[in-house]
């Protein structure tokens, strides 16, 4: 009798070139890699210095996303000296090594984790690695994606493999129906709050349950994307008909008979009944409320109807200290109602939440409304294709009429590596993934939430419950 296997074990097993030791290290074959301009330069320099070539150039896709300007008027390089250096070196490397590049002016440009799925570059059952922690996003397609550093990129480009240590497995089961105005962002934020910022460190997460099954692929991507904020080095869902329907019209997927063969094979990508996980977590979707962060770690989150917690209520001394520090940085007092907190900025963007479905939700909230006085509100679509589609659907007009800046795509203010940087003391409602100190600029205070919640905050001028909105 075969031993029942988890999907993780199947994905890793089918990509293992050889075992390297008896501690779980394997040489793992990687099917696809996505490259960006800021984590790749030293990897290319390493290849050049050692006079090494790429193992297989057509497994790579290169996208400029981190440093480019998001000003409405596109320019090929960008205003910043450092960014220009990276963009130019990236283009030179892609040309030398024969890698396909979507540069700033390309109509397919965008955030790598938005672009790769919309191109059909990522398929179920693939292993994917990229120099960006949010590579976990691809798990929504039934692929196994994870982030790597620059030295690993170099290793991957030269050998098509990584020296990989197998992870423990965690299953997160989400059952139930989400309430009106509650999104997959709230689900993943609730999970991170529950298990903590290192709750999944050393684990790969498989998500399952009726809530996940009823979600669109884009909503699933938000969950897999942000699982890394709980420390997961890989987060995925078994592919299903929803995934196949999403993929079928994409440009780079197999066509005709090959498609049918692929789907047959992808249907084997599931966890066997009775397979054992190292940890099980369950989440009741019925009880999830809109989530917001109050601190400087993604697990410092609570429901919007809550109040800023008091560090003294925590029995763990180390946690108490870090809560105190977070509150000090955030300029918040314990006991303050989250709903009243005034904002100076609202940002809708990032690989977590800037796809077309996100923008449609935002449009519903801000239609025929105006951004509050004193709030600067920006929308940075996840890709140039998303931008074009939003314009076609009339969403862009709604945003502009409401007083939002409607910008070009890129990572932008998610990590503020380009010129979209806020000033010390600014407070931003943000649809992004990290509320770290200094993430959106030194001294900037970030509150994470769903795009619909950011939209509502932009209109009200303070954090508020999107559900009140829907009732009105």
């Amino acid at each position, binding site marked *: 009798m075969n031993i029942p296997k988890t999907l993780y074990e199947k994905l890793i097993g089918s990509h293992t070139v050889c075992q390297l030791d008896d501690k779980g290290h394997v*040489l793992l074959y990687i099917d696809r890699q996505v490259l960006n301009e800021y984590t790749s330069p030293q990897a290319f320099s390493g290849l050049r210095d050692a006079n090494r070539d790429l193992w297989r150039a057509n497994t790579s896709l290169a996208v400029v996303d981190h440093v480019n300007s998001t000003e409405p008027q596109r320019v090929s390089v960008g205003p910043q000296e450092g960014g220009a250096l990276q963009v130019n070196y990236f283009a030179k490397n892609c040309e030398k090594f024969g890698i396909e590049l979507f540069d700033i002016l390309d109509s397919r440009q965008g955030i790598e984790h938005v672009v790769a799925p919309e191109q059909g570059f990522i398929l179920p059952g693939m292993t994917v690695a990229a120099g960006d*922690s949010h590579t976990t996003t691809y798990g929504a397609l039934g692929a196994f994606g994870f982030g790597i550093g620059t*030295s690993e990129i170099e290793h991957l480009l030269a050998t098509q*493999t990584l020296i990989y240590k197998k992870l423990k497995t965690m299953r997160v089961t989400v059952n139930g129906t989400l309430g009106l105005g509650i999104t997959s962002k709230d689900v993943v934020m609730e999970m991170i709050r529950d298990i903590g910022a290192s709750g999944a460190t050393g684990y790969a997460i498989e998500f399952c349950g009726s809530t996940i099954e009823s979600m669109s692929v884009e909503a699933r991507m938000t969950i897999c994307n942000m699982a890394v904020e709980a420390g997961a080095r890989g987060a995925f869902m078994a592919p299903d008909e929803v995934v196949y329907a999403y993929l079928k019209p994409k440009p780079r997927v197999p066509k005709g008979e090959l498609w049918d063969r692929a789907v047959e094979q992808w249907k084997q990508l599931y966890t066997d009944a009775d397979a054992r996980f190292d940890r099980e977590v369950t989440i009741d979707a019925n009880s999830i409320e809109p989530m917001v962060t109050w601190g400087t770690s993604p697990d410092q989150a609570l429901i919007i109807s809550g109040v800023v917690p008091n560090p003294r209520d925590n029995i763990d001394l180390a946690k108490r200290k870090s809560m105190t520090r977070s509150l000090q940085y955030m300029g918040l007092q314990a006991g303050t109602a989250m709903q009243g907190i005034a904002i100076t900025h609202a940002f809708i963007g990032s690989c977590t939440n800037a796809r077309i479905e996100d923008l449609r939700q935002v449009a519903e909230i801000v239609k025929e409304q105006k951004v509050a006085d004193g709030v600067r509100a920006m929308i940075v679509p996840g890709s140039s294709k998303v931008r074009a589609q939003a314009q076609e659907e009339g969403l862009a007009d709604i945003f502009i009429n409401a007083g939002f800046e409607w910008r070009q795509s890129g990572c932008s203010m998610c990590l503020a590596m380009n010129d979209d940087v806020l000033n010390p003391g600014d407070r931003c409602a943000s649809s992004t993934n990290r509320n770290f100190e200094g993430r959106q600029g030194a001294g900037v205070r970030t509150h994470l939430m769903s795009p619909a919640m950011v939209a509502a905050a932009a209109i009200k001028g303070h954090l508020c419950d999107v559900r009140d909105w829907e009732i009105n």
Partner: protein
Amino acid sequence: MDAFTIEIGKIAPFMTANIDTDVIMPKQFLKGIDRNGLDKGVFFDQRFLLSGEPNPEFVLNKPQWIGARFLAVGANFGCGSSREHAVWGLKQLGVRALIGTTFAGIFYDNCQRNGLLVIELDEKLMTQFGEHVASGEIQEIEIDLLRQKIKLTAKNEINFELDPMRKEALMQGLDAIGSTLQRTEAIKSFEKQHLMNNPWLG
């Protein structure tokens, strides 16, 4: 990669949990195409005042911990962004090892690739160790990678675990790409079969 055998030096306390790589290496230092000059960026927003002067309150600016070669760190150190610049910067600043309970996965691998030793101790032991570092009871230590020991005094040692494969790579300063390329034939034969089974991956 520098080989690690025995290292002696000061250890500084950095026991806050969830120190992320944005804090270790802020965005303004990520714009190069080489690895140089990143020592300046390490903990920049905390280490320097707005005037550019060193912040006297920051742990690595305090006289007893200036020039520390080891850091005792809180749980989940290195979480967040994959930026290897954080590790390059720490190394350029002279840090040779980090001692904590848990480390973020990508950060851990980045350390390994750059010869920065990461030691994981259990929580109880680490809490005690961290307190002794913070109080100044433990100031200078010796780390012996071959024997897998942290030497606190002539009589007091802590043993630590490390995968033999990682240990060997660190001790010899191995070039991982070079050793993987010795398996070229195995990779090629795997790839041939893999692409035959999944022709859409070609």
